[in-house]
């Protein structure tokens, strides 16, 4: 793995700013990967062995993902919406898993570790670099049972919603009164009042046989179809 400072710089760039959460996230990822014996998580031979569960959608989550190279679309990054500054690192090859939890004590201790800095955010940033892992984190050895349908790789199973016909992948369908439903039809969705609409430039596409832009979409439509 690269040096902490190198990782922090690239993580901050990818995230958009340098903040205390980036420091915590980079260190959390470094520790987590070390604990499960995958010290080069982005390397080809290791990337397929790693699954990371992040328990917050905060700056720290981006840093963890950046350092480890895990991605939502690769199914190596799992978001568990717990609101807890923690992440679990799983080695699929060995089954080992460790949950690294950022301590609340670290926040209170920032002034002790960086007393020369008055600005709260800058103080935390510096302090989180100075604290040993033992102060910044608690670590739990955990067991993580991963369903086959949650693993990386091709879609293993598809279902069809009996109400709207939507294809539902990876066993995310719901059975209600014996019927197979997608979550929106089962009223388990995050949105309500869905009504289908049309929109301007409906036929825009990034590629076609002649140069086009949104402006001449109409002409392109003629040429491309």
């Amino acid at each position, binding site marked *: 793995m690269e040096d902490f400072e190198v990782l922090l710089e690239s993580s901050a760039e990818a995230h958009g700013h340098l903040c205390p959460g980036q420091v915590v996230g980079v260190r959390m990822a470094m520790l987590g990967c070390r604990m499960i014996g995958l010290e080069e998580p982005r390397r080809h031979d290791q990337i397929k062995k790693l699954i990371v569960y992040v328990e917050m959608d905060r700056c720290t989550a981006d840093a963890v993902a950046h350092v480890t190279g895990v991605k939502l679309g690769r199914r190596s990054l799992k978001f568990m919406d717990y609101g807890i500054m923690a992440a679990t690192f799983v080695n699929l090859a060995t089954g080992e898993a460790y949950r690294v939890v950022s301590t609340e*004590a670290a926040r209170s*201790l920032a002034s*002790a570790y960086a*007393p*020369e800095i008055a600005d709260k955010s800058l103080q935390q940033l510096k302090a989180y670099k*100075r*604290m040993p892992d033992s*102060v910044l984190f608690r670590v739990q050895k955990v067991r993580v049972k991963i369903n086959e349908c949650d693993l990386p790789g091709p879609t293993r199973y598809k279902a069809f919603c009996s109400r709207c016909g939507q294809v539902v992948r990876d066993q995310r369908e719901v059975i209600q009164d014996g019927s197979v439903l997608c979550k929106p039809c089962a009223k388990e969705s995050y949105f309500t009042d869905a009504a289908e609409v049309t929109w301007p430039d409906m036929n825009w596409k990034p590629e076609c046989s002649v140069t086009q832009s949104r402006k001449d979409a109409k002409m392109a439509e003629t040429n491309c179809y």
Partner: protein
Amino acid sequence: MLKKIELKDAVGTKLAHDMTEIRPGEFKGAAFHKGHTVCNEDLCRLQKMGKNHLYVIDLDEGEIHEDQAAAILADALAGDGIVWKDQPREGKIKLLAEKDGLFAVNTAALAAFNMVDEVMCATLHNHTIVKKGELVAATRAIPLIMKRAPIERAAAIARQNGGVLAIRPIRKAKVGLVITGNEVYHGLIEDRFAPILSEKVKALGSEVAGVAFAPDDAALIRKAIRSHLDQGCNLLMLSGGMSVDPDDVTRQGIRSAGAGEMHYGAAVLPGAMFLVAYLGNVPLLGVPACGLFHRITVLDLILPRVLAGEKIGKAELAFLGHGGLCKDCEECVYPHCPFGKGT
């Protein structure tokens, strides 16, 4: 885990912990020690101590007793020059100075240690001068039985940088004094600085190897400094000439003598115009005139630390501000007062 049993059923069982008895103004201590087998005669006294139930210990895997925990904590906290005996009393272990010296506490690590649930350590102030055998800290785990993992995490925190607590030996320095000022140099007034500084130096076990006098002339101050260095002095103290007067050229003299690092000004009253410089590895302390008037000044806070090998820079002088105000009491009881205890 702990099992609670009624007192009447306790005869024949062994006590899980020391049982503290407090008789106001008369006695506080262990009435019964851990491991004592309860007999019929004990029941009455235990009842008088307000005990109607006792604990019987049944340790699960991954659990430890407070005495074991205290030993793990003490071992981790104790850095250089700190000793302890594995004889917990009421769950507490005392940590003692193994030798004379300056007590050093990593206050950030101590705070981090105490932020771990169920452990505690209380210490004397950082930078306290202590004698061999003196109690400097005590630690304990708070519950009778606890999980091992948090104790070991607390121990890891305590172990950072070689232990939270240490005794730094106060070295015996060969001190060169330079007393500056035309008024003394030309005999207009009698110097009182040299005896005061010499007394402070001797009180800490060092010796004054030479006293040089210099007028308010940077070149002659430089010469006096170099002369002390040539004679092997490994700590220099200069008095006078630290203020803002045009005649106060001491700082120029120190600079021209080859001081690389120089910090002028400390967040302490008395002692705002204190100066710390380094000529190579040799520290030089510039003592302002307040040292003539006040019994205790910034010098008393810094000199032991310098002799204990601490490098004093801008931050160390700045951090003295909290607690750095002497109340100028009619009867000075330093070091038994808050002066200089803020860092």
